[in-house]
């Protein structure tokens, strides 16, 4: 098995993310499984940012623990990340930029001094070229073949040709050579492990998924970590035939999306918790007016502005309760880009089938980090049906007709004889208001009850139409993790770490957070020896949902709300504690 992690750190504006992405992409091109972790701050220049590409011949689900190579563009990076370097690892830096006293070189690590600035000067006066030299050095130490890294580097310039690309290629070769000489030992090159893999962020997977699902309209207001959904679709707008509207605020964004859906296209909006808070009223309108809608809620650390560039799973309560009154909704919680792609396809199907808002719960950790996906894992639906399919029935048309499953035939503007008024007020089957002169009158009191029942009945349908919880791992595991969303990744990696220590553990996975599949969850939980809840928030919001829905309190809990994603090792430590302590 090959497993290697390369970390690049410096200040914002240093080009860290692009160096890191080239490393991650190179691993993916060799057919390795990759997790690319992009850690940044809410500044455009300065501060401390880092990117790590972790690759393995086995599946990797998180940033993992520690790394093999650190390329430090400034002394802070060496200081912060030095201790993470594993035994036999390397610390790459340019002694012209800063010096590290010998006693500060991490134990077990080798310092590799690479004159990145001097190499850059051989080609140009632009110091940014130093990154190519550092990239070459780090790549050699990580076992990446020079031609692989140079291919990814050249491709990162797109169609641009000429001396800029040549300088980069030259500088990377020079850095590669210097590292080879300085390493003190031959680092074997990683052999291709299979066909090249796709490297995508969760948001890219969601954006591709939306287009593949037939979404024709996205309205969004910029907000980290949801913005890159808009960026991908905007960049590909004409190619994929999706209108992308940057709205004046999130109120407009969701209302535009609702209007477009009413007008006859599959539509979506995406935001983070702050923007979602503004969308709440309109979300209820989509529920009341029975309009299909997909909303991506990519969580970040709250409350309020919180830590805008850091992750958290703190908006579950908000997503569950968003909106006055009650209306049906579903919340899907993928954990990995490939799951995000599939959940997006499913969200559009569910929204249309059940004519109600479907929430896609993501977070910064899933939305903005990279992971590999096998090309075959992403297939595009062959037929995305037209929405103009309602059979006209003229004067008898009832937009909100009572039906067995609560879903009524929906006409679209432009269809003759099927006009109706979509109302946010309570209404009758025809769509006529019962909020003004009829409300409180006995006949219409009963009508209100029927209409509420009709809408809420869709929850039963949604429960049946969404993926139930399942057990990953053996039924007789010593310990079963309970988690949701992106945290599943680190838990999966922790399970592997535990297995290496001869502990058999399993995961109770809940791809659908709501409607909660209580009976299925309880059945699986009942068979577990010990249960440990892992989620990235303060109060254990998923645990609370489980209690509310089943009366079952997951006995052991691991919460994290420092803005950082879970590291497999901290989950392992907690799990060992639970295993040793006893108690169910």
């Amino acid at each position, binding site marked *: 098995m090959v497993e290697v992690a390369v970390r690049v750190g410096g200040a914002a504006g240093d080009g860290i993310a692009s160096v890191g992405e080239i490393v991650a992409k190179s691993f993916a091109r060799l057919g390795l499984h990759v997790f690319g972790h992009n850690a940044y701050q809410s500044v455009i220049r300065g501060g401390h940012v880092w990117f790590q590409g972790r690759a393995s011949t086995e599946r990797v689900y998180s940033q993992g623990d520690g790394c093999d190579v650190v390329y430090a563009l400034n002394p802070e990076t060496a200081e912060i990340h030095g201790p993470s370097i594993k035994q036999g690892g390397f610390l790459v830096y340019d002694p012209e930029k800063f010096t590290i006293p010998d006693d500060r070189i991490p134990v077990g690590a080798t310092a590799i001094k690479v004159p990145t600035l001097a190499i850059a000067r051989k080609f140009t006066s632009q110091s940014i070229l130093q990154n190519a030299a550092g990239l070459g050095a780090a790549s050699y130490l990580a076992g990446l073949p020079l031609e692989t890294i140079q291919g990814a580097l050249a491709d990162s310039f797109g169609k641009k040709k000429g001396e800029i690309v040549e300088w980069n290629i030259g500088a990377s070769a020079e850095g590669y050579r210097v590292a080879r000489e300085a390493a003190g030992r031959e680092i074997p090159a990683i052999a291709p492990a299979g066909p090249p893999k796709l490297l995508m962020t969760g948001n890219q997977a969601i954006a591709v998924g939306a287009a593949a699902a037939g979404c024709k309209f996205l309205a969004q207001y910029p907000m980290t970590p949801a913005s890159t959904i808009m960026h991908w679709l905007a960049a590909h707008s004409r*190619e994929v035939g999706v209108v992308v*509207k940057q709205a*004046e605020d999130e109120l407009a964004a969701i*209302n535009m999306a609702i209007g*477009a859906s009413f007008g*006859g296209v599959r539509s979506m909006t995406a935001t983070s918790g702050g923007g979602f808070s503004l969308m709440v009223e309109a979300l209820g309108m989509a529920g009341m007016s029975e309009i299909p809608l997909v909303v991506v809620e990519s969580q970040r650390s709250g409350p309020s502005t919180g830590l805008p560039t850091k992750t958290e799973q703190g908006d579950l309560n908000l997503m569950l309760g968003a909106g006055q009154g009650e209306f049906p909704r579903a919340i899907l919680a993928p954990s990995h880009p490939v799951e995000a792609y599939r959940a997006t396809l499913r969200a559009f199907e569910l929204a249309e089938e059940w004519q109600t808002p479907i929430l896609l719960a993501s977070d910064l950790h899933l939305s903005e980090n990279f992971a590999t996906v096998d090309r075959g894992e992403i297939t*595009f639906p062959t037929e995305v049906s037209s929405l103009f399919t309602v059979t006209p029935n003229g004067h008898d048309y009832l937009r909100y007709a009572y039906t067995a499953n609560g879903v009524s035939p929906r006409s679209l503007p432009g269809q003759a004889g099927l006009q109706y*008024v979509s109302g*946010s007020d309570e209404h009758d089957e025809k769509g*006529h208001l019962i909020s003004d002169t009829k409300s409180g009158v006995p006949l219409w009191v009963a009508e209100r009850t029927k209409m509420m029942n009709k809408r809420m009945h869709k929850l039963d349908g949604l429960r049946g139409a969404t993926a139930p919880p399942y057990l990953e791992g053996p039924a007789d595991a010593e310990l079963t993790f309970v988690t949701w969303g992106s945290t599943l990744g680190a838990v999966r990696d922790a399970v592997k770490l535990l297995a290496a220590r001869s502990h058999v553990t399993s995961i109770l996975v809940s791809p659908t957070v709501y409607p909660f599949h209580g009976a299925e969850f309880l059945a699986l939980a009942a068979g577990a020896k010990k249960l440990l809840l892992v989620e990235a928030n303060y109060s254990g919001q998923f645990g609370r949902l489980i209690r509310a829905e089943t009366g079952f309190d997951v006995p052991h809990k691991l919460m994290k709300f420092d803005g950082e994603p879970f590291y497999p090792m901290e989950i392992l430590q907690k799990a060992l504690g639970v295993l040793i302590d006893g108690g169910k």
Partner: protein
Amino acid sequence: MAGSSTAAAPAGVGTLLPLVGKSDTKPTWCPGCGDYSVVAAVEMALKKLKIPSHEVVIVSGIGCSSNLPHFVNSYGFHGIHGRALPIAEGVRWANHGLTVIATGGDGDGFGIGCGHFVHAMRRNVDLTYVTMNNQIYGLTTGQASPTSMMGQKTKSTPTGVIENPIDPIALALASGATYVARGFSGDVKQMAELIQNGITHKGFAFVDTMSPCVTYNKINTFDWFRQRVYKLDAAGHDPTDIVAAWSRSLEWGDKIPTGLFYRTEKPTYEDLEEVLAAGPLARQPAGLSGRESILDEFL
């Protein structure tokens, strides 16, 4: 909903279809309310243009006037407070073959929804926005609105309003609206004409109608307006002259101009949004089937 992937031609094209008229719901406005004139004017305008009722969408927010879509036999969207315009924009972009009219009151459009008002105009979305401006909150029983005049005593301002009112006409001119008009519920014929021309206008058409509230606004009454209104065209106003339009927009007091303040031609948002060049979005192909090469960039 499963079905054929081929988007059928709009049902009924080429046949005689019902034009816009009254719906089977009777207005619930107070007797004498200015909004009766507005719904009549909207109906007249659409009838005159012979647009079949199924190709019209009337979108509104919340408030007395926002009930309007229920009283017309077209498609309607009775949304939430202040959001008529973004909903209407979404409808328009989903299917720009439709005639989209947004309606609502002064609280809805110039208070809670004022941000959308400005942005819809700068985009020059091709829709018609008809506001029923009664300078008061009616449905919530009489609080000050963004267009209530200085000093007006209301339930929320018992000693009188102490803020300057919004001037919707001036705001529209400043925001880049390409058709700016004011109507008055005391003159349905003029109002219908203004709305009709607004609908045929290519771009954002704003028609602010002074539509008196007979219950909660005892100052800006029908009579109050009748004593003050004069018609811009009769006064020789040139609606292509933005400076003249600005100057007329400032008139409010003894004399209140009605009619067309300003009109100009500019590309609409729909003209400039390249994806819409292939026809109404709702009738374009959807999905990525056969386009697997799009994944190459992730390799």
